[in-house]
């Protein structure tokens, strides 16, 4: 579904991405991991059109998307969440999750002003769709929370809103940038289940950036490891975690020599 | 590219003088000098814009009005002195604040420090005496006006901009517009509602003519004074910014205010200093403007166009950059004056003088669309 070939990007003297290649198949959950500064968010920015890569290609469903604007890439079927949350702060939860439906609107502004039947039908459909995406997270973002401005929400609820918002774009591939950042273990367990449900029930293909190894190990079909903008390992979680190059990147040369594992995760099944 | 432009200009001059025979070389020499003068004036005002933007990323809309205040204050100083005692005290108070501010820069003390207060008291007495007994010449008027206008600049920052430190930039811009309108109407209220003649006794406004290839160029001595003052003031500013502690603090604050504060820089004081310096330069420009044109428009109008044009000049040169402001000012001066000389009014052609005022705006829009960082400036973009 997504093919990244020899991607490279430099900022001034800093080479952020170097000759990166991997692919994501439809229906997979692929995790991108690596130490901080490895270029994970830069990778996302290049896929979503925020940065233009210096060289290499990114193909989505067979077509190259390099050089397209971010909103065009959403039309093509890719959506993302942000590492530091970029919600529409003063707007309500409902408004946040309905905005991604705007690009699907077939009516023009005049129809919107006149509230033509065609427009009203699309509004209602957008409303239902938004509610449907929010229901992924249980009843907690429905009812009265729908109309609350996002700035009163708890941090975890804000993350959930952003994920619902990304789903509401009707994208087929979701890029999740550290979806469990700032969450405690029980919230992390919950989001892990939700991501899995997103793939199983929602049919989304998911590419995610994460630091929490337990989450990564629990749901990834495949893992790609980056360090200094380069891919240093790829494979299943078990393979990657025992790969000496990965151990060296995370724990240092000595640890690699000692043959330690990079599996630093807490076993999710032991949580209450 | 500069060479290409100069070549085109040369060809055009040649055409106008030798082929169409509508102008003489002398007239272009005259246009050159008047462009230089106008450019110097714009440069002085542009420096204030660029310094304030460099340090707090604010487009100080009110700077044009600060320029106006400088001009009018100097007018009152050389035309109405000696004052009666109450007026002299009031005037001396303003000037003394300026002196005290400079004194705080010198030693790093606070405004309430005994030494500073002593300096202030001395200056208050001294200037009251001066203002109530002497009739000031234009130079003294300019210096005192620079001090007073500096105080006005600091006051504007303290009252309108300081409470909004950390507020979104657009709120600041709107506030700056409000301050600008306030000063315009305050000028109307307190100064005058008509044009004011500006003719102090000075040899610099005496005519000065010289010959170029047999034709006479009629100018005044100001073609020497204006660029000279520009050079003096800019050099002084440059030395201040590069050689003094406060200058270093200014440069640090413009790069990263938070870290500067952590390094012990009193950021609010530095910002106030920037406003003071910018206002001083604008006041000097105001005096020179008056000398140049012989009169001042009414206060609500006087600072408006020069202000926006000087701002355009700062952007063209590269906002945030001191050499950029000077360069931009000079370029704009030439754009306005010399360009109209290159396309003079002839029987078949109405000339472009009436479009003169739009040049600054058009240049501004073009630069912002093509190279927003200006000819010399820095690039500021947002991180995702």
């Amino acid at each position, binding site marked *: 579904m997504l093919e990244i070939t020899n991607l490279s990007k430099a900022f001034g003297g800093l080479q952020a991405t170097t000759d990166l290649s991997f692919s994501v198949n439809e229906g997979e959950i692929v995790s991108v991991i690596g130490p901080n500064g490895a270029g994970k968010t830069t990778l996302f920015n290049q896929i979503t059109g925020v940065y233009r890569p210096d060289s290499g290609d990114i193909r989505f469903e067979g077509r190259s998307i390099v050089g397209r604007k971010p909103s065009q890439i959403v039309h093509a079927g890719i959506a993302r969440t942000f590492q530091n949350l970029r919600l529409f702060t003063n707007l309500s939860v409902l408004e946040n999750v309905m905005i991604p439906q*705007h690009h699907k609107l077939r009516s023009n502004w005049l129809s*919107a002003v006149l509230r033509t039947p065609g427009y009203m039908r699309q509004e209602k459909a957008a409303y239902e769709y938004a509610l449907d995406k929010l229901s992924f997270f249980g009843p907690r973002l429905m009812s009265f929370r729908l109309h609350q401005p996002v700035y009163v929400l708890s941090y975890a609820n804000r993350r959930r809103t952003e994920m619902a918002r990304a789903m509401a774009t009707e994208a087929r591939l979701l890029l999740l940038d550290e979806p469990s950042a700032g969450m405690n273990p029980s919230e992390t367990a919950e989001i892990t289940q939700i991501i899995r449900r997103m793939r199983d029930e929602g049919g989304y293909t998911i590419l995610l950036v994460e630091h929490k190894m337990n989450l990564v190990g629990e749901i990834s079909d495949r893992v790609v490891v980056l360090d200094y903008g380069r891919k240093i390992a790829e494979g299943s979680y078990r393979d990657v975690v025992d790969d000496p190059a990965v151990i060296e990147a995370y724990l240092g040369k000595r640890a690699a020599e000692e043959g330690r594992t990079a599996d630093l995760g807490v076993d999710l099944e032991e949580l209450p | 590219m500069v060479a290409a432009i100069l070549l085109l200009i040369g060809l055009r001059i040649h055409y106008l003088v030798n082929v169409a025979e509508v102008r003489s070389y002398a007239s272009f020499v005259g246009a050159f000098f008047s462009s230089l003068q106008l450019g110097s004036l714009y440069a002085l005002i542009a420096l204030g814009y660029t310094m304030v933007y460099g340090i707090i990323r604010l487009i100080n809309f009110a700077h044009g009005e600060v320029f106006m205040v400088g001009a009018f204050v100097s007018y009152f100083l050389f035309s109405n002195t000696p004052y009666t005692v109450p007026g002299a005290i009031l005037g001396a108070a303003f000037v003394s604040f300026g002196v005290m501010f400079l004194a705080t820069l010198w030693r790093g003390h606070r405004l309430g420090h005994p030494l500073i207060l002593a300096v202030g008291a001395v200056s208050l007495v001294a200037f009251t005496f001066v203002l109530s007994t002497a009739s000031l010449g234009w130079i003294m008027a300019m210096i005192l006006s620079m001090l007073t206008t500096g105080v006005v600049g600091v006051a504007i920052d303290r009252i309108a901009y300081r409470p*909004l430190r950390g507020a979104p930039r657009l709120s600041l*811009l709107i506030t700056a517009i409000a*301050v600008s309108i306030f000063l315009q109407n305050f000028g109307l209220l307190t100064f005058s509602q008509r044009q004011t003649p500006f003719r102090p006794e000075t040899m610099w406004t005496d005519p000065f003519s010289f010959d170029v290839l047999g034709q006479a160029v009629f100018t005044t001595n100001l073609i020497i004074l204006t660029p000279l003052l520009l050079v003096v003031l800019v050099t002084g500013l440059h030395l201040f910014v590069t050689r003094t502690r406060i200058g270093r603090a200014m440069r640090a604050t413009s790069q990263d205010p938070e870290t500067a504060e952590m390094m012990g820089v009193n950021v609010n004081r530095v910002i106030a200093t920037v406003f003071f310096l910018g206002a001083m330069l604008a006041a000097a420009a105001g005096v020179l403007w008056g000398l140049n044109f012989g009169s001042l428009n009414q206060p609500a109008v006087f600072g408006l166009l020069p202000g926006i044009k000087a701002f*355009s000049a700062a952007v063209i040169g590269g906002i945030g950059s001191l050499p950029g402001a000077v360069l931009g000012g000079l370029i704009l001066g030439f754009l306005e004056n010399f360009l109209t000389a290159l396309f003079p009014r002839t029987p078949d052609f109405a000339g472009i003088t009436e479009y003169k005022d739009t040049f600054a705006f058009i240049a501004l829009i073009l630069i912002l669309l093509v190279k927003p960082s200006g000819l010399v400036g820095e690039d500021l973009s947002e991180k*995702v």
Partner: protein
Amino acid sequence: MPDPKRNRNRLLTLAGLGVVVLLLYLIDNSGSSKLVQAFALFSIWGIAAVSLNLVNGVTGILSLGQHGFMLIGGYVTALLILPVQSRIRIIESGRSSMTEETLSISIANFFSAIGLESLAAPEYLWLQFIVALFIGGLAASFFGLLVGIPSLRLRGDYLAIVTLGFGEIIRLLAATSMFSPYTNGALGFAGVPAEFGKSVWWTTAILGITVFVMARLKYSSYGRALQGIREDEIAAAAMGVNLAYSKILAFVLTAFFAGVAGGLWVSWIGTARVDQFLFTLMFFLLVAVSVGGTGSITGVLMGTAIVVFIRQYGDPLEQTYALTDWLRAGGLIVLAGGFGAFIYRAARRLRPRLNAMVWVPLGLGTLAFAAALVAPGQGWLEGSFRGFGLRAILLSVLLVVIMVFRPEGVFGRSEFSWAAVFRERRDRPSDEERGQDAWLSNPDLADRLARQEKREGDE
């Protein structure tokens, strides 16, 4: 979105409209032409301000060029609707830059040309005016498109300056020889029919249309997209919003209504001249929009009311009074401000109680009073003083105060709605829901609730 109180709200709105009509009738027949004119001006500037709010408040782009759009609309409307006598007078004045050709551009001639001679007659001036207004709006919206293009590449304050530049260029060029065949240069057009601009019915009806369109737009998908751009442009693009289309749409619509407002403005004054469209006009609109609230149509209307009130009824401020009277009045106001600040700080228990905001006004006020007392006998304090420009000073001080203390405007983002009047809030849980929500996050509370319900069930 299902709205349970929809019918009640609709009835209330209808009743409200009835009240407005009654109000207009009373004003129109009040006999005070000053009141009529003031209200008409409120509506006219209201149109300009409410449409400015679409770009400034809803989309979050500071646009300072509204006066340019109004100029375009005003001049186009004026040229199209100018009565024949006025046109003749222009030619006869001998100083006009217009030709026979350009002077013959009018709606009446247009109607005749397409075969609708009857509509060219003076009785149909009202119809001609509507068409002229519409065309003026269209002309302005074309310029809105032009101004919108830089908005795709520039941000915040730079963009604001560019819009200002556009507004000023339009104003400066309008009087130059390039355009004076169409604008009559610096002289402009005198004799524009005033019965439309000065009519509360016409102006308020068009204001109503503007508010209707703007409100419907704001609460639609397009409105949400624009607000998304205001909140976070990058996130909006990441969610599929076409930034270019949305921003240009906002500018085009804003410019259209500004053009219409300009057409009504020249009718209100009766002439179309370049100096009716100075930056001062933009400043008034900016105050209206900023004081009222970012994106709140209700707030903007309130702001417009304040601005128009001060402009129309502020003349007493700008007369000549004795200096001592000024000192006393000014001293009184400043003292009141100082006391107010003191009471505020005391009530909020802020320390120090006597900080600069308190003693500076108190000191200045006392000085002013002292000066007024001492005045008789002191030569320089006798004499009078004209309060020239005090209205603008008042408005600029108001703007600074709002920016410092409440930058989001008095109304902020909230809008008038019947739900707000009845204190119905959709963003608060009902008691039943409150129980449910707690259960999700706190198992102990759920146990307690379950036990309590069991107890109540047993009783």
